[in-house]
């Protein structure tokens, strides 16, 4: 038997099914959003609910602050996460790939959101082990909110306007809170121009994440060679240039920093060493260039030539995340280019309780 304070599971189930029936769900149950709940989301921002915060011209749809709040509520966010959702969405909409055809793409890219600053702890983001999830409500639901906005506000649904061939694991679930406490380097947001200690969000689209497990060498350069090999994988090379970030675990980051590598030095090392020979590329049918696209060229003249693939430091962003319990880092394959835009989280207008 239940007392009066126990929620009604039958009503909850009926409400969840109501949402499924309307095709609003990403496959998992949604939190049915009511006006009082959404009002608490809207109270966390000074922005007008009708303000358009994202437009997808090619499909004639847009997202307002209000629609973002409804979708964030449905994703399971608490109201106080809403400023992070708004900042993440704004950061994504600054990305050329997300404004263009990214959401419709056969590559099915996943947003990667990076949160910096004190808001990580204020809202209970996971900043340590299992950085890529799952298990933590803020990380999981902020990322999911973006997916629901794309699905519902923009109307980009799988098999219809969304044409992902296979998609990728982690789509709508990657929200890293940088492990600033154990990183030897400045936070990602600081590199993006935010003052030290600022709460801020950046985001881009990923093609995939690939681990680099290297825990048995004390030589930082061997770790970098291992990272470079993963970055230089031919399967991921489609254009002349590529962009691949590295989410270093604290152990690798500290080892590198201990050997005198700044973030910039790591980036420069990777720019210098990432690439393939003409023979490697030819073997994979990617040695020719038509415009910027790689294609199979029978010409063997450049077989011995080494082609670098990372044109600038901006193409190899670095973040530190995860636990300090093993030397496992992640190469994150960026869809297009990461603008590196960092959106600060504005102060909350009033104390919000949930």
């Amino acid at each position: 038997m239940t007392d009066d304070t126990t929620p009604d599971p039958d009503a909850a189930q009926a409400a969840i099914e109501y949402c499924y029936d309307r095709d609003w769900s990403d496959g998992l149950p949604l939190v049915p959003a009511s006006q009082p709940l959404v009002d608490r989301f809207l109270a966390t921002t000074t922005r007008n609910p009708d303000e358009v915060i994202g437009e997808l011209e090619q499909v004639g749809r847009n997202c307002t602050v209000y629609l973002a709040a409804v979708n964030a509520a449905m994703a399971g966010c608490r109201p106080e996460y809403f400023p992070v959702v708004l900042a993440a969405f704004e950061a994504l909409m600054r990305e050329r790939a997300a404004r263009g055809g990214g959401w419709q793409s056969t590559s099915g890219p996943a947003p990667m959101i990076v949160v910096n600053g004190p808001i990580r702890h204020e809202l209970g983001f996971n900043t340590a082990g299992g950085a890529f999830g799952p298990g933590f409500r803020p990380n999981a639901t902020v990322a999911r909110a973006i997916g629901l906005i794309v699905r519902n506000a923009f109307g980009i649904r799988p098999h219809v306007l969304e044409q992902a061939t296979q998609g990728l694991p982690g789509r709508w679930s990657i929200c890293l809170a940088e492990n600033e406490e154990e990183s030897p380097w400045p936070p990602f947001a600081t590199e993006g121009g935010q003052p030290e200690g600022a709460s801020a969000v950046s985001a881009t689209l990923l093609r995939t994440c690939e681990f680099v497990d290297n825990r048995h060498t004390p030589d930082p350069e061997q770790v970098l060679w291992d990272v470079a090999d993963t970055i230089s994988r031919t399967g991921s090379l489609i254009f002349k240039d590529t962009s691949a970030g590295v989410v270093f675990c604290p152990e690798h980051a500290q080892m590198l920093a201990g050997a005198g590598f700044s973030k910039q030095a790591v980036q420069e090392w990777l720019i210098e060493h990432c690439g393939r020979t003409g023979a490697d590329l030819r073997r994979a049918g990617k040695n020719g260039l038509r415009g910027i696209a790689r294609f199979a060229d029978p010409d063997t003249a450049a077989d011995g030539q080494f082609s670098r693939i990372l044109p600038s430091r901006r193409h190899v962003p670095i973040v530190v995340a995860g636990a300090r319990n093993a030397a496992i880092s992640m190469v994150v394959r960026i869809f297009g280019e990461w603008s590196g835009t960092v959106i600060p989280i504005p102060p909350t207008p009033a104390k919000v309780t949930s």
Partner: protein
Amino acid sequence: MPNPILDPTGTTATAAKAQAPRAKRRKDLNGATVGLLVNTKQNAAPFLDEVGRLLAQRYGATVTMARTKVNFAAPAPEDLVKEMTTSCDVIITGIGDCGSCSASAVADGIAFEAAGLPAAAICSDAFRVTADAMADLQGAHGYRYATTPHPVAVLTPDQVRERAAVVLDDVVALLTT
């Protein structure tokens, strides 16, 4: 009364789009100026070039303008549509061979129809659903376009020419009465 469950799509407030206009068809392509709108996808340029060449050779059309869309994911910019509308009688656009570019090839076809030009969009047959969804979004439910079997990007030059020849009748049917 319980609170209503809120709609996350925002579509109820959007007015239904008016039915998109369809341009008057030509009786035939004899003497017609054909515009080719190439979307930069692999093999799109040789494919459309060959369609244009065959239209000239077999139907007496004149290909006078080939233009390239800088951003294949988005519909063609207005000034490009205007430029081609001024100089051409019919438009062929493609190849819709990805999630966004198949949808936008159809959107371009519909935009040219609205500007008064018969247009034939060519898409890979793997993208029918997304092409149809875009047509619905543009108020052109049931919009007809030509398809060629997937894949297109890996075809050799000879195979591209064969494909162009195969799709030719459909293209002509789309552009004429």
